[in-house]
């Protein structure tokens, strides 16, 4: 379009206008593929199937909101248990992954040790693995240890997926925290631990909140690991549980969309309240 070849042929104003149109078109296209599915999900979730399919077609303009689908979920499925399972492993893995990331990031930027650059490269390399690559070996490990079907095992598995990126993020973030801040605290008499508590952690907060959000998203949306580590119905997470609904005759579109809506709520809340930190943290990580 308005590339270097076209310079001089298209006026500056026109170029700007074209640029804006391109941006809006892209935004529109993306919205079509994200907003419409979300809309469809919400509408189907809050109408009874009878309303949705009234008249032999799919009605996507809500006329009679109802909680029927949610009541069915509560009454005849293990949704609540799945949801609790998800919360437990997600929380555990988020805390674990973030803690590891903060410790590793601090260590990688504040101490010199042999093999440091190798360690850093290994972290990035391990991030390249797709979860499914790790799934079977992890299954073997947990099976040997007798840890299958435990929240603990799934927490570890999820941490294995999210930790490399979180470590990398914190490593980058700690590079932007001036060491003079810590030195100034030491000179004033603060021990290393006290300095970490009083100075390092507060200053690194945007970084570790970003890491935590990432770890949360990985764990909450995970399907692969839960599918592999958990084989008993009562241990499934909400994602695995919801996928099973599709196979059941008694559960229709309405209930499936209702459970999808439930799955979306925690990430939505997090995005709503923590997006300020998310942007700060990732812009430092060079991911703006």
């Amino acid at each position, binding site marked *: 379009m308005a590339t270097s070849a076209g310079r001089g042929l298209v006026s500056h104003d026109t170029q700007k206008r074209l640029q804006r149109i391109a941006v809006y078109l892209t935004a529109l296209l993306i919205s079509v593929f994200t907003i419409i599915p979300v809309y469809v999900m919400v509408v189907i979730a809050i109408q009874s199937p009878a309303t949705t399919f009234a008249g032999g077609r799919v009605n996507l303009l809500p006329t009679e909101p109802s909680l029927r689908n949610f009541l069915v979920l509560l009454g005849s499925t293990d949704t609540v248990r799945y949801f609790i399972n998800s919360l437990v492993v997600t929380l555990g893995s988020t805390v674990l992954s973030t803690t590891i990331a903060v410790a590793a990031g601090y260590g990688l930027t504040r101490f010199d040790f042999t093999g440091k650059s190798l360690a850093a490269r290994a972290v990035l390399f391990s991030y390249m693995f797709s979860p499914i690559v790790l799934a079977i070996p992890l299954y073997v490990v947990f099976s040997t240890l007798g840890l299958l079907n435990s929240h603990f095992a799934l927490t570890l598995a999820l941490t294995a997926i999210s930790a490399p990126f979180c470590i990398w993020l914190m490593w980058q973030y700690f590079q932007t925290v001036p060491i003079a801040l810590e030195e100034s605290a030491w000179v004033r008499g603060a021990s290393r631990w006290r300095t970490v508590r009083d100075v390092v952690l507060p200053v690194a*907060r945007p970084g570790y909140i970003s890491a935590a959000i990432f770890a949360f998203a990985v764990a909450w949306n995970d399907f692969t690991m839960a599918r592999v580590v958990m084989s008993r119905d009562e241990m499934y997470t909400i994602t695995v549980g919801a996928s099973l609904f599709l196979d059941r005759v008694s559960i229709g579109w309405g209930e499936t969309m209702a459970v999808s809506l439930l799955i979306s709520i925690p990430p939505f809340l997090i995005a709503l309240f923590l997006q300020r930190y998310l942007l700060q943290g990732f812009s430092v990580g060079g991911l703006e």
Partner: protein
Amino acid sequence: MATSIHLDTVRKEFRTLGNTHVAVDDLSLDIPEGSFTTFVGPSGCGKTTTLRMLAGLETPTSGTVSFGDEDVTDLPPQERNVSMVFQSIALYPHMSVRENIGYGLKIHGVPKAERDERIDEAAEVLQIEAQLEKMPAELSGGQQQRVALGGAFVQDPDVLLLDEPMSDLDAKLKSDLRVEIQRLHQELDTTVVYVTHDQTEAMTMSDQVVLLRDGELAQVDPPKQLFDYPNSEYVAQFIGMPSTNVVDCAVEHRDGETVLVGPGLTLSLPAGVDVPTDGRVRLGIRPQYLDVGSAGACRLSVDVEVVETLGTESVVHGRLEDGTPFDVVSDAVDDAVAGDRLDVSFDLADAFVFGEDGETILFGSERASERSSSPAGAGGVTP
């Protein structure tokens, strides 16, 4: 309680990727208690490394550092009663100004009431009372630097270390803070060690200036002494603005007299001056000591290239006939323009003679004071 500081053959090496870099080499130095000592030198000369060794943030590779009689070489920073102001200012962005200043007191368990009292006092001295409840990001650069100073001296340290605290400030603020820091030093019972690459700061503030070169001590002296009796060409050129002019000269003997011959310049040395016969020396003369005209004993011609007007006086940047750069500071060159040839002169009493190794052989002023049989100010360096 202010303490004296002693460095004994201190050496600091940094190893990176198999390379060893010597940052400080064989540095021995005494800093009197309660004094204001400035470390000055170009970047990479080891001045900040030395300061960090005083703070305990670096450990010497060899040698010892003592505060008074106590060997503190291996003591961590937490166990030395020092305060430090960093070049980057290093205020805690998540703490208010009050908390920033009082952080050290809090660490030492000073009760809140006393803490607040001392913070208020410090803020009053530094004129930042109105900023106490603000966050550092809301302050100007000068105010931030005052807060950093406040945090450093509120702890009543034995030694106050300042690492280029003003390098990021503008000229006006610098001159304000210079006065402020000196006033603080007078009020406090503390030994101040100040690091800067700015020789104006070193000259105006210090009791004692330590000039470093490539990690080694070049000269330690009070500012005036350093200016009048530089022990080497390096010192003479580093101290003073613009730099001391240095001219290559041949040593000749004519009729029993020792004569220096340079580009457009012949200068008889008085008897008894020991210069290497048939060698070469370098003649140093400060731009401020040159007179326009031919009043002085030694005359030179300068081809004018650039004239900078400073108000009452002007700086002429020019070259001698062989191309040696040569500056003149005078209030009598207002009408000089590029391309002019300017006749200037000076007295031997205002010149230095450096040997080929850069060591000072002769301080003109010393020769002059001998002649007027006044023994005052004999430099501490034997010619």
